[in-house]
C-alpha cells in the first residue's frame, strides 16, 4: 500500500504539494495549488527511485512472511 498522504513543500512557495510515488515514477508532474509550479522526477533519478521502491516492496513481502511465522 502506498501512502496517500505524502507531501513535499513547493520549492517556490513552500505550499504542500501532494504526490504519489508510483505516479511520480511514471513521469507524472504534480502541480502546486498555490503558485502553479509543477514538480516531477528527473529522468536521471527514475531508475534509482524505482529500484528503491522495488526493494521496499520486497522488504514488505519478506516482513509479512516473517510476521506470519511468529504465531
Amino acid at each position, binding site marked *: 500500500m502506498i501512502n496517500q498522504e505524502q507531501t*513535499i513543500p513547493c520549492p*517556490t512557495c513552500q505550499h504542500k504539494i501532494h504526490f504519489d*510515488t508510483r505516479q511520480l515514477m511514471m513521469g507524472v*508532474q504534480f502541480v502546486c495549488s498555490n503558485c502553479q509550479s509543477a*514538480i516531477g*522526477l528527473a529522468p536521471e533519478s527514475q531508475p534509482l527511485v524505482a529500484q528503491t521502491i522495488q526493494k*521496499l516492496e520486497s522488504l514488505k513481502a519478506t516482513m509479512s512472511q516473517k*510476521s506470519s511465522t511468529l504465531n
Partner: protein
Amino acid sequence: MPTIQNQPLIPDFTKELDIESIISAPLVAVSKANAVMVSGQTQFLLEYCFTKTADNNYQPVLIEMQLTRGIADETKQPGDPDYIRQETMTFTVPLLCIVPMNSLAVDKVTIGFDLEVTSAVNQPSQPTNGSSKSVLDNKAQLNGKVTYSPQPNTTQPGNNRQRSQLSSKINVNLSAANLPLPNGVLTIIDLYTKGIQPAPSKNNTPAV
C-alpha cells in the same frame, strides 16, 4: 542455513491456559510483527536512503527533481506570444522524502474468540510494604481455553438466552490500530523535507 516454510497454524484449543496468556498472546504476536517490521525498516533506511561516509557518518541519498513554472519576460509586452515562457530547473531532494515509509506497519488487527473458564485458582499476590493481610493479598487466577460457539441466531431469541446463562464463557474482542512512525524518524523526514530549497544543480538551467 535452514529454510523456513509456511506451515498451517494448528493451535491446541483443548489445552487449558492462563486467561491472561490467552488474551495477550495475539497482541504479543502483533507487537512482535511490528518489531520485525521496524527493524527491517531501519535497516532499509540506512542501506538504501543513506550512504555511509568514511568517518562513519550517514549522508542522505539525493535524487533530482524538476520544477517547471511560467516566467514572465519583462522585455516583452503582456500580449506577445512569448511573454510567458516555461522554464525548468532541477533541484535535489533526499530520497527519504519520497519513499512511502510509514506503510510498513500492522494496519489494523481485530481478533475475536470465545473463551471458556475451566478453573479458578486463588493465588497469593506479592506482599506490598509488609502491610497486614487484607482482601487484596490474594488474587484469582482464571484458567480457560478457547472455545467455538456458533453465531447467535437472531430469529431464535432462545439461543441468546441460553448463551447468556453460560456464565463461564467470555467473549473476547481485541482491536489494535497501527502506530505512527517513531518521532525520531518523523523528525528526520520533516527536517529533510523542510530543507528543500530551489537551488539549481545544473549550470545550464536558469535560476527562478
